[in-house]
């Protein structure tokens, strides 16, 4: 599955891992993240990510 990188801090969203800190299950595609999801490392919203 497509990984996405935060353009502000470089953190990478890996769908295989999800983001347990915000209740995101492993296997969740970036596109399916809720609108209020943000980068856990710097707080950037979804639209500040780009596909890796």
């Amino acid at each position, binding site marked *: 599955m497509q990984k996405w990188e935060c*353009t*502000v*801090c*470089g*953190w990478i969203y*890996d769908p295989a891992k999800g983001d347990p*800190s915000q209740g995101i299950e492993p296997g969740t595609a970036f596109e399916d993240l809720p609108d*209020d999801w*943000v980068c*856990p*490392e*710097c*707080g*950037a*919203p979804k639209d*500040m990510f780009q596909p890796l």
Partner: protein
Amino acid sequence: MRYVVVGGGVAGVAAAQRLRALAPAARVILIEAEAVPHYLRPGLIEVLAGEKELSEITPYPKSWFEKQGIEYLLGEIAVALEPARQEISLASGKRIPYEKLLLATGAEPLRPEIPGLALPGVFTLRTASDAERIRTWAAGAQRAVVLGGGWLGLEAAHALRRFLPEVVVLDHGPWPLPRQLDETGGTVLAGLLRKKGLEMRPNAEIKAILGKSAVEGVQLLSGEFIPAELVLIAIGVRPRTALAKEAGIAVNSGILVNDFLEASVPGVYAAGDVAEWRGRVYGTVRAAREQALVAAQNMVEPGSARYPGTRPSQRLKVAGIDLLILGETQPKGGPQREVRRQGEGYYVKLVLNDEDRLLGAIVIGGSDLFGRLEELFQSGEPIPPSFLSSD
């Protein structure tokens, strides 16, 4: 209901958004001392390097907040808090009453006690205007000295080196990131930083910053003089507690909060870099956000959410160098063994218990190992023998 949040960094903004969502009919007022709308602080390094504009690290314009129904007071400095009257006073003379208050005033840079701090050309890096002022000043500089070999010092030195020919990192410690790295790791990292053009000066004690009308250099205790037209101080931060302290709210290092993130005065909460929970001031974006969301929940419905603590952030790069630090890297006592591998610009140290489960790890270079090690660390599975023997 009337919710007031003081401080528009990551904690304050996250809390204001959550308050808005949880209490659609309430007033939500966000007070921020800086004149620009909320930006993502980790991105200031890129602004300093000239790689990004402030607008590129600013997620939402001021109008976005207003559309959400968040009253956003920018450039307003909170100067006094009167819990008995439930009121905040601003430097502009305005008074803002609250029913529930969140203090998210963040942290401020520490400064050493040495002469010369007030000279033009001496900076700290915390705010957007700091980044822009440093950038402007650096245009007329050749040489910079960065005080401090922690995360911020190394990141800032690397950013400055992109446009200055000489950048010296003066570190009073024996190697960079001494809290996270052992001596070998620190030595390998220092070597990589030197390759990137930074002059690393460990065990350096600074005596004074010297100059006539502006910075001309720094004087070390050893007597050595290092010329520089720019000095950046990055020796750490401390929670910005003055507002709370003067209001009689209990403060240690940070504002003391309970598991509901409530301070010692009813109706007043704290979150982020200013908050001290169970003896800990986290100082990470992740913790600031998580605390802010719990605090907002409790401001709307008291006693409804307990903060469980935040797991450590996994930082994967410093100054452009791949670096993974997991768990306990320098443990004391207990049944354990270490596996080390080392090469040119490359260092791996795994700390294992007697069942080969990973307690901690340092990896410098070798980012191909990061994902697998993080998985093994989180799952607690034993490290496969093949992993330990392979090159």
